[in-house]
């Protein structure tokens, strides 16, 4: 879907922003991770054909982004991190304008502008000036303008930046929907690892201008002896009984008076196989009901650090 071979880019006398980067981004939702200065933005600029003076090859859906940058851009939608809008235009006019620049005929651009703004939840605000939009609405506007020309590949730069928790959930749902229901390929540059872990199928890690590896989410390994547990009808006896049976419980936040509570349950790694039986037995003995019990898997953060440490450095 996106292939980069031997990509090197330097700015003046500074160390190269990208050093001989060779990677392939598969289809689906891919997280592009790396600390500040890792080269993520430079890579995005190369993919969009906005940078000159780099060596190597960048291929976007089979199109050479270096030799045919405009053809490559036609296939790509980009949502920048920073606040961006078109001055003195309503939402629908701005998106239609950008759609026309993407090559859509006038009427089709206007129609699609309405459609994508509706899709991202701005249906009621299409005729308002973008300057008057809230932060959340502007994030949605930026996503809409990235979608208007129906690109096959969507590049997102920190799409949840500045959003409240509910807004973040909605944005993550929109991104997941694009990949799942509309077959879009998404490359998502982010620092927020839990969000990427939740939505991406794989991550690509860059550090100090170098490619550090690709990791598939399905390969996240269970952490031995650790379980996520949700229980209803809890009594103080449950925790005492669990302790007696060799299970250490740590509450995962939430209200103590809530009828349903979540814990991280830990047993000796050697007893992982029997942990489920022990926990269910504890619940049965104390009258509690287990609503969720699953092994805790390795989180993306630890994978990320492992990939960075593979060459002896940390962010």
């Amino acid at each position: 879907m996106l292939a980069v071979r031997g990509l090197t880019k330097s700015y003046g006398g500074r160390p190269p922003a990208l050093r001989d980067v060779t990677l392939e981004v598969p289809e689906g939702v891919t997280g592009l991770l790396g600390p500040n200065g890792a080269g993520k933005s430079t890579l995005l600029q190369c993919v969009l054909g906005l940078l000159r003076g780099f060596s190597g090859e960048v291929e976007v859906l089979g199109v050479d982004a270096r030799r045919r940058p405009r053809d490559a851009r036609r296939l790509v939608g980009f949502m920048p991190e920073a606040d961006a809008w078109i001055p003195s235009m309503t939402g629908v006019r701005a998106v239609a304008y950008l759609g026309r620049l993407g090559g859509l005929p006038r009427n089709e651009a206007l129609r699609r502008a309405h459609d994508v703004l509706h899709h991202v939840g701005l249906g009621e605000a299409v005729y308002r000036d973008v300057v008057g939009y809230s932060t959340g609405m502007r994030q949605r506007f930026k996503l809409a303008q990235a979608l208007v020309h129906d690109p096959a590949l969507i590049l997102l730069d920190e799409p949840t930046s500045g959003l409240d928790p509910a807004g973040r959930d909605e944005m993550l749902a929109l991104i997941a929907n694009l990949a799942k229901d509309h077959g879009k390929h998404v490359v998502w540059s982010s620092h927020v690892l839990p969000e990427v872990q939740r939505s991406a199928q794989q991550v690509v890690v860059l550090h100090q201008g170098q490619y550090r590896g690709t990791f598939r989410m399905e390969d996240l390994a269970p952490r031995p002896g650790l379980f996520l547990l949700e229980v209803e009808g809890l009594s103080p006896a449950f925790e005492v009984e669990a302790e007696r049976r060799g299970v250490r419980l740590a509450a995962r936040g939430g209200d103590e008076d809530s009828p349903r509570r979540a814990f991280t349950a830990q047993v000796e790694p050697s007893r992982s196989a029997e942990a489920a039986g022990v926990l269910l037995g504890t619940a049965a003995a104390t009258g509690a009901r287990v609503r969720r019990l699953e092994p805790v898997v390795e989180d993306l953060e630890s994978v990320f650090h492992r990939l960075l440490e593979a060459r002896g450095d940390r962010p």
Partner: protein
Amino acid sequence: MTVHARGYRPYAGLFGGPPAWWVILQANVEAVRATKAMRVLTVLLLIMACCVGLLLYAQIGLDEKLAGLSPKQAAPGALVESSRTALLLALRIYYTAATTVVSLLAILTGAGLVADDLRARALTLLMVRPIRAVDYALGKALVLPWILLTRAAAPGLVLWLLAGAWQQPGDTQAFWEATQNVPGAIGTYLLLCAGGYAGLTLLVSAGTSRRGVASALAAAVIFGGFVLRGIGLFRDGSAGELLRLTSLPTNVLAPIISPHWETMHDKRSQWLLDRLPDPSGAAIIAGGLFLLGFLRVWKRARSVEVSE
């Protein structure tokens, strides 16, 4: 348009359409037209064109009266020269007003053409489309000339045609011959005006993301030029000639003013006529400003960053 459920749909149609610079030009002209400043200035120009038209009509009629002639009695060609002088005066008044309006337009609206895009980071949204930096620069560079063409060119030509229509039946041909340089003078005015003002606004606008600063810079160049020209009027030699070229409004008005002053034989008019900017110098300044402004915007668009 058929009613359909809103939501994301794949696009199966063709890509293409007009060139990107044309789309950018259209969008920006629409945006400028919608501004309050533009509406007010357009109404002012319209009123001015009507007033100057009435003045021209009255002047031609008055000349006939002063000559003691009714239109039917006048000898062929007798009033052509006075009509020509009246037309040149009317054009001078109208284009002086138009140039003031264009100067205000450049300060109030033109200065924001690129500065507003920089403030809104619109370039990040624009340049990730399949367009070139030159499309953006060209689209922006043509906004002011386009507005000038529709607001300033047409009234001048209409005045010329009306003056011809108001001639006595036998004088029309002689009037066209006597005023055959008028369309050329209007064309030269438009070229100088378009190049000079578009270049100036692009240059100041692409240098800052604050419209107020760009407006102040544009105003400083326009009004500062007046002052420098004033100093240049009283200096001889090449220094004086150079100073007299610093006033953009006077430079662009020279093709309209000089034919009128040539018809006036008083000392003051002749003195001023001698000190009008050299046409080739004015053209070099307008062309240079346009080129500099265009290159500045092109460079800005070329160096766009996708993140901060």
